[in-house]
């Protein structure tokens, strides 16, 4: 177990591309931090730098009390789980899990014991003598987990470990990984592009965009008060509606539609207004005229897509509420309106 500290860590590739602008953050002991962002945002680069697979261009990386910038991956006492499992195809499950320990020179009985314990925990005991290609995707992912666990590392690193699994298995493994992490209380860094995974698993989320940290916070902070329009539209499905409007004498959406509620302090002029689809509800007394053009059935809820004042807008309504295409009125729930700077997208 260990805490991790990044101090102005930066990555520039030899071709001059800056994959990560200098960023600093702390991961407290035992916490699971999720790095989330669209592809190419630098989240994998960051993870691989922590693993030692990618060189750190500038800055300082500390795991525990050790600066590990130039420490070999094998000596950082970390374990990594890869997207495509990266199991050694020619070794049995037991050999796969024990390979790292064997290389550390542990005596064979001890390796066997640790492998058996881990296999027990992961329901892999009966597969110990199988080869990876005789296992299903979920089992392979478990073996990869087992390989990480047997080393009792200071730090777990997960590189999109669930994206090769089907949806049902993914939900199940998500819970399993979370449970294991809680059980060992091992500091973990988890990379994903799936915002549902990020929301459900994380103690804290770090949202990355274009090599820059957009926001660090707990899932409810990230969802409840996104720091920028990027975070607002990336986290949440369907994403937050972003409408251009202005603040003067009250708040208006372009087209002269007044929005009730508080206006941002110390800001006038054009502004981006964010409203989550579930923070509005159809109501006769509503203030927002909403033109519904498409209805999506999701089972638990319905999504109404349409326009407000010529700008696209989505509304989520519970499944027991009837919906039809055409015009309706929407009422805002309290605290529904977020304001962002119209140029740099930061929260106001």
């Amino acid at each position, binding site marked *: 177990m260990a805490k991790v500290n990044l101090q102005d860590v930066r990555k520039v590739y030899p071709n001059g591309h800056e994959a990560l602008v200098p960023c600093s953050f702390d991961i407290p002991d035992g916490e699971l931090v999720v790095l989330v962002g669209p592809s190419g945002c630098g989240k994998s680069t960051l993870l691989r730098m922590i693993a030692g697979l990618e060189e750190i261009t500038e800055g300082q990386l500390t795991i525990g009390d050790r600066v590990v910038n130039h420490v070999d*991956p094998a000596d950082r006492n970390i374990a990594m789980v890869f997207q*495509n499992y990266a199991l050694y195809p020619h070794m049995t499950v037991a050999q796969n899990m024990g390979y790292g320990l064997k290389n550390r020179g542990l005596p064979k009985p001890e390796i066997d014991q640790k492998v058996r314990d881990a296999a027990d925990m992961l329901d892999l005991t009966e597969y110990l003598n199988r080869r990876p290609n005789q296992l299903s995707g979920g089992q392979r992912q478990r073996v990869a987990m087992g390989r990480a666990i047997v080393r009792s590392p200071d730090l777990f690193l997960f590189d999109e470990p669930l994206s090769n699994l089907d949806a049902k298995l993914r939900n199940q493994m998500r819970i399993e990984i979370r449970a294991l992490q809680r059980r060992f209380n091992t500091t973990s860094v988890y990379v994903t592009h799936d915002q549902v995974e990020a929301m459900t698993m994380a103690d804290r989320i770090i949202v990355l965009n274009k090599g820059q940290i957009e926001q660090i916070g707990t899932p409810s902070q990230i969802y409840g008060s996104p720091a920028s329009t990027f975070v607002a539209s990336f986290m949440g499905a369907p994403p937050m509606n972003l409408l251009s409007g202005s603040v003067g004498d009250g708040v208006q959406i372009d087209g002269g539609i007044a929005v009730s509620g508080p206006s941002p302090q110390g800001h006038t002029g054009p502004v981006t207004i964010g409203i989550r689809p579930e923070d509005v509800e159809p109501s006769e007394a509503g203030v927002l005229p909403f033109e519904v053009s498409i209805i999506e059935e999701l089972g638990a809820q319905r999504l109404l897509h349409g326009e407000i004042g010529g700008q696209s807008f989505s509304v989520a309504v519970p499944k027991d509420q009837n919906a039809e295409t055409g015009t309706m009125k929407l009422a805002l729930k309290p605290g529904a309106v977020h304001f962002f700077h119209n140029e740099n997208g930061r929260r106001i």
Partner: protein
Amino acid sequence: MTDISQTSAPAKQPVIMGRRRIRMSDVVDHAVLILGALLMLVPVYMIFASSSHDAITIHREGLQFGFGEHFAANYNAALFEYGGFTDSVNGVTMLTNSLILGLGFAIGKIIVGMMAAYAIVYFRLRFATFAFWIIFTTLLLPLEVRILPSYEAIQAMNLANTYTGLIVPLIASATATFFFRQFFRSIPEELIEAARIDGAGPVKFFIDILVPLSRTMIAAMFIIMFVFGWNQYLWPTLITTDESLFTLVRGIRQIIQAYADGSTTPEYGEAAALAIIAMTPPVLIVVFFQNWFVKGLTESDK
């Protein structure tokens, strides 16, 4: 608007019993294949049949289709009768020499090729790409092209008439390096990274991960290279003048020539027998290893 619902499956077509119609294109296809096979196999059969006749019959009547009575005698002579100018070489010696050449060439080439490919693919060498292309261009320069300088070099190193001189210059070519490079590049990056985190250094990674992963590839390479080495003719002819180092492939010719120089009839029967013997090991290797061979060239079980 009618409701869409699952329609019941259409009634099964009755299966037409009786003979399958033979299509013209099938006949043509098979005719071509059979013709090709015959073209390949008939000469082999004729040699095999002829190897059971004595020299005089073959000399008088040409290659034979039927079997004669000298089968055992011919093979016995081909294998165990000492011949050549110095009477120091028989079929078994030549068989051994050919095996040494084939195995030495195949194994040497695989080892050198794998290690070169390992260096090129996995290490950030300053001139890795350049080195690869240099190695690659040797594909354009087979031994036959550079035979004089090679001969000079081997001669100068006093390696003529040694197994080393026989094998090493043949190893120097890029085929194995090229194939292994392509294969290594297809191994997923994550596997290497996982091994790095598992604490496998370069040597451990090579031996524990890369070699076992390459085993089908190694088998395929072994077959190709063994047959290639076994069939070498020009280079052994040039570099070995000592008859005890003769290989089978050149021995066949030597027998005919040696006897043809005299006034007696060339020992055609024995030569045919020797040809059959020379053919057998490569055929056996291909037959026994063909599963591996196909796997190595097609499978991507990674």
